């Protein structure tokens, strides 16, 4: 066993959905980075949906 093992990131992506969730989080982060009230409100709504399993 080597001291530095590569984490199996791919194993965490079992379905296409995992990719969509990753993209949804990226979108939320971008909206938050913009930081306008409109964007923060959209980010909040998207975050709420993501937590409920809606991410498209």
């Amino acid at each position: 066993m080597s001291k530095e093992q590569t984490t199996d990131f791919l194993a965490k992506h079992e379905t296409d959905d995992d990719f969509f969730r990753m993209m949804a989080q990226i979108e939320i982060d971008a909206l938050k980075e913009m930081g306008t009230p409109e964007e923060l409100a959209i980010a909040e709504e998207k975050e709420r949906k993501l937590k409920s399993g809606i991410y498209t």
Partner: protein
Amino acid sequence: MNGENKGGKVRPIDISKFDGYTLEQVENRLRNLKHEELFVFDENGKIIAAYKGNATSVSFPESIINVKGATVTHGHPKGAKEFGGTFSFADMKNMLESQWKEHRATAAGQGEMNYILRKGKNANAKGFYDRLNKDYPALQANISKRYSEAYTREKAKGTSTKQAEHIARQEAVGTLNAYYKTTASDYGYEYVNRKKKYKYNR
């Protein structure tokens, strides 16, 4: 897409109604659907199995992974972002763990037709898998950076939020497309991005 043991209910499709369908005919069908479907062709181009999924995923039995020489195609519907996109990490993982010779994602967004990954004679699946894992953190960071830059740029130009999201998604996923293109050949795979209608010749 995902295997049976990795989550999701497997919903087989009666393939008798697709008897004699070519790959092109199947993919034309996939482009017009709002849900994902997956078709498995054997080495002789005959459909041997098909599965129905939902808008964002399709499940298939684990045994499909072991069909040697198969051509597997599945749809990436446009969805809210009007863009299907290339292989997800799950799609890549499935191909690299399989005995398939060709894996295809069929999309219908603007400027999209097919994303194709073909296994060459001396393909090194484990090497490619390990490389993807090694590059994953940087790749994910790059996708995020590209998305953020594109979104910010478009909003500064006065583009609507919906359109800015569409453009940013296209550019961000384009990062992944470019990565697959440059990396696949290092491991004996061919990655092709078909953007326009073309002759299948099979």
